[in-house]
């Protein structure tokens, strides 16, 4: 009862305050916002991207975003270091020791369908990043759910048997990183600044809006984040017994 009274008092206070102190609504576009709009959506040297946030993120704040991405990759490298194994131990981890009874048929079938849908949706989030809310990191995070679902419904070994093992995931991640670096460095060749969007990359190809370098950044970030998460998930899915065996822990 006491808690309920406190809750009601708190809610009333918040709503009253929100009603009394209304946030002033801006009546016209501020000069800074006008500058950003002018240079990312309108204008001749803009990316013509309707999603101005992505444009700002990869263009004006490009270096910042690059370092943000670097933090994520350092985290992945850290977890890879924690799980460092020798060649024999890698092989040991990849062999399925006990045959586990598979999950019921409906779960496996539905997982297949949902995984296909997740792949489509994540690609759409990443490749539409310059037109709609979304982008490479979000798309990559959505992509990483697909291998996670497969690990849960089948097993980690099913993923590895079909060719997506830790090494492949790391190679994909490295391709993504390399792509981001190359797209960032290409403007230097023609005497522009690093990570510059225009006028090196065309804003449109055959009338299709691709937003300059934004689509390349989004695609490579999508690849790198998805594959990086997949590598970590594969490591986390190693059974505990295997690690006990490797580390020599007695029961």
């Amino acid at each position, binding site marked *: 009862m006491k808690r309920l009274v406190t809750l009601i008092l708190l809610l009333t206070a918040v709503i009253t305050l929100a009603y009394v102190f209304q946030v002033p609504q801006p009546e016209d576009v501020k000069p800074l916002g006008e500058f950003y709009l002018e240079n990312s959506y309108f204008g001749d040297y803009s990316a013509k991207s309707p999603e101005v946030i992505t444009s700002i993120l990869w263009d004006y704040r490009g270096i910042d975003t690059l370092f943000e991405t670097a933090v994520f990759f350092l985290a992945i490298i850290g977890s890879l270091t924690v799980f460092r194994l020798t060649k024999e131990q890698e092989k040991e981890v990849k062999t399925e020791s006990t045959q586990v009874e598979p999950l019921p048929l*409906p779960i496996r079938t539905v997982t297949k369908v949902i995984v296909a849908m997740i792949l489509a949706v994540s690609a759409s989030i990443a490749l539409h990043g310059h037109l709609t809310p979304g982008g490479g990191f979000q798309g990559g995070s959505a992509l990483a759910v697909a291998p996670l679902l497969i690990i849960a419904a089948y097993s980690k070994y099913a993923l590895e048997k079909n060719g997506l093992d830790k090494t492949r995931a790391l190679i994909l991640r490295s391709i993504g990183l390399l792509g981001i670096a190359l797209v960032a460095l290409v403007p230097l060749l023609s005497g522009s600044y690093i990570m510059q969007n225009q006028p090196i990359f065309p804003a449109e190809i055959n009338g299709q809006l691709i937003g300059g370098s934004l689509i390349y950044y989004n695609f490579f970030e999508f690849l790198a984040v998805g594959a990086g998460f997949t590598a970590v998930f594969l490591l986390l899915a190693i059974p505990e017994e295997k690690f006990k065996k490797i580390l020599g822990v007695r029961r």
Partner: protein
Amino acid sequence: MSEILFYIGAVMIIIGGICDLFGAIGLLRFPNFYVRLHAATVGTIGGAVVPLFGVALLALGADFLPHRYAIAGASFITGIIVLLAAPAGATALAYAAHKVKLVEWKPKVDHLAEVRGND
């Protein structure tokens, strides 16, 4: 035509609300894990899929709405995904609970055991 779609959609949304209510009550009041799982699935299928289809019909019927085909398509696809995923999730939960014997299992009727016994 749009009025018919409106009424069908509205009725489906109301059905969804009722199913959600029954699902919530069942989740609180039912005796054991498996029957509660049934109530939860009533909440997801009846309470999420049916109203989503209802929203799709409503949006199709509303001529004044901008992007009404996008709204209808998104609702319909979301409904189908939930329709696929909810039974699979419930199956996985029931299977896992049965497998590790976490939940007490006292069936009144066990058709599977009868069938297996007759073989």
